[in-house]
């Protein structure tokens, strides 16, 4: 009978940590060297904010200025875009040319690749939020307590996670060539219907009722809650719960696609 000697040394946690660090480093270098993705993803929400938020900045929505209101809604718009594009198109393209196949055949811990993408996506969201805040503070004249700025940034960055999961699900269900179209078809109407471009109270009643079924609505409401300073702990918990539910749903969907990948010849 054949015996299989376990001649290999253990893979220490230090080595494992190094894999995660190397993956993250490669993701970072790829993004840095590919401005075609980075520049539009970062600049579009900023341009939109300048166009809509600052032009109507002097007007009031409820108790706050439009510039402050739209800081929250375009912040949500920006991080959602960065996450959906980063994951949806990034992973789909790399599936398309077989890179993810080679990685799956390799001894890479499967989570390392996704963790690296998630870290990059969160980093992007942070950069985007900081850019938006700078515009809001300087050009929009938005003045908020420091704790509110920090809380808003935290909510936007943490709230981007379900959209990473959505992007991942798209990457594993749409083919590499159709993923960009699917991301856009979902992203832009979903953002509009959730009141990210035009505040929800100005939208038709039908859309106002439909919005809670869309994940961006919940992120926008959380961000708006921070800006308006209305204490709404119970409502906030409901929105977080909704975002967590969407995250789990999208992750399960992505997992289904990942396992279904076996049938497709590409990764």
């Amino acid at each position: 009978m054949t015996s299989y000697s376990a001649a290999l040394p253990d893979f220490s946690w230090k080595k494992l940590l190094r894999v995660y660090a190397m993956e993250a480093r490669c993701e970072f270098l790829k993004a840095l060297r590919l401005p075609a993705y980075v520049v539009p993803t970062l600049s579009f929400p900023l341009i939109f904010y300048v166009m809509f938020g600052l032009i109507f900045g002097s007007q009031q929505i409820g108790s706050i200025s439009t510039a402050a209101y739209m800081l929250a809604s375009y912040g949500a718009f920006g991080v959602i875009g960065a996450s959906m594009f980063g994951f949806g198109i990034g992973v789909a393209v790399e599936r398309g040319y077989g890179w993810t196949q080679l990685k799956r055949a390799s001894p890479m811990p499967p989570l390392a690749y996704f963790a690296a993408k998630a870290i990059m996506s969160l980093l992007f969201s942070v950069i985007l939020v900081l850019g938006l805040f700078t515009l809001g503070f300087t050009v929009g004249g938005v003045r908020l307590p420091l704790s509110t700025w920090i809380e808003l940034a935290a909510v936007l960055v943490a709230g981007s996670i379900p959209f990473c999961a959505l992007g991942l699900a798209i990457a594993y269900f749409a083919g590499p060539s159709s993923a960009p179209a699917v991301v856009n078809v979902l992203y832009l109407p979903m953002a509009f219907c959730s009141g990210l471009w035009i505040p929800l109270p100005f939208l038709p009643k039908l859309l106002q009722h439909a919005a809670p079924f869309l994940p961006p609505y919940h992120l926008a409401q959380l961000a708006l809650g921070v800006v308006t300073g209305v204490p709404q702990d119970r409502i906030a918990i409901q929105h977080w719960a909704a975002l967590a539910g969407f995250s789990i749903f999208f992750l399960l969907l992505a997992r289904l696609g990942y396992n279904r990948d076996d049938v497709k010849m590409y990764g």
Partner: protein
Amino acid sequence: MENHETVATLTGVTKKYGAVTALQDVSLNVRKGELLAVLGPNGAGKTTAIRLLLGLSTPAAGQVTVFGQNPRHVATRRRVGTMLQISKVPETLKVKEHIDLFSSYYPRPLSRKEVLSAAGLEGFENRLFGKLSGGERQRVLFALAICGDPELLFLDEPTVGLDVSTRYLIWQQVRRLIQQGRTVILTTHYLEEVDALADRVVVLNQGVVVAEGSPAEIKSRTALRKIRCSTRLPLDQIWTIPEVNDVLAQDTRIEILTSQVEPVLRELFSRDPNLSSLDISNSSLEEAFLQIIGSREHQPASEVTA
């Protein structure tokens, strides 16, 4: 039966993609230290067999083991290196960054210098993958396959469309790995590659193993040999020799195909003692291969492989 240590097995494996049966009841043993070539025309099931052994897909029926384990286990994969038929890896990473990344997955990787030298990539370490030529790209994919110093190496059509120097470089490195006792599984449809490298060949056609053996065995078992000579015998007379499979007139000479050269020659000399310009050649592996693939159309696999 054999004292060879088995490294990887397919046992009664069937794999379907929708309505298409990619592999039908295929069994395969890969022995330690051998270079096994999986040969077959496009769509024969070669890549499917590799994907199963890599744990990239699961069989509908049957069993797959690598080092006696599930090929999907990370512990198994740490002993395996892989070169797949993929078009590229991210173009905005440098050669050294790709190698360092894949090396980090393995417990005892080669040094970057060793990898660069083995893959013929010295001087390319700071080049972006996107700036490389086709042959250089293939060398990077080869580098990623060997950087973990694997005991078992999968090469799925490693030299398709490659320039001669890159092909020979890969052949040379594969031979070196075999000398070090490593096991290599190679799929190809280049018979020249099989002849140059393989210890053992498995021929797949339409998802079924149709032949198995050393390249020489494959040639001798199934191949017809070719007798060329000048003779006054008319063709229809030669046809009456029972062992003759085919006869062709070739200018002044005739060409006889047979699997049994000696009885045919005896018969020819008895009928024409003045027979001249005799020349007997083994048919090439390619002719053998074509014959195996062709006969599959008429015979069940068991008769062909017997």
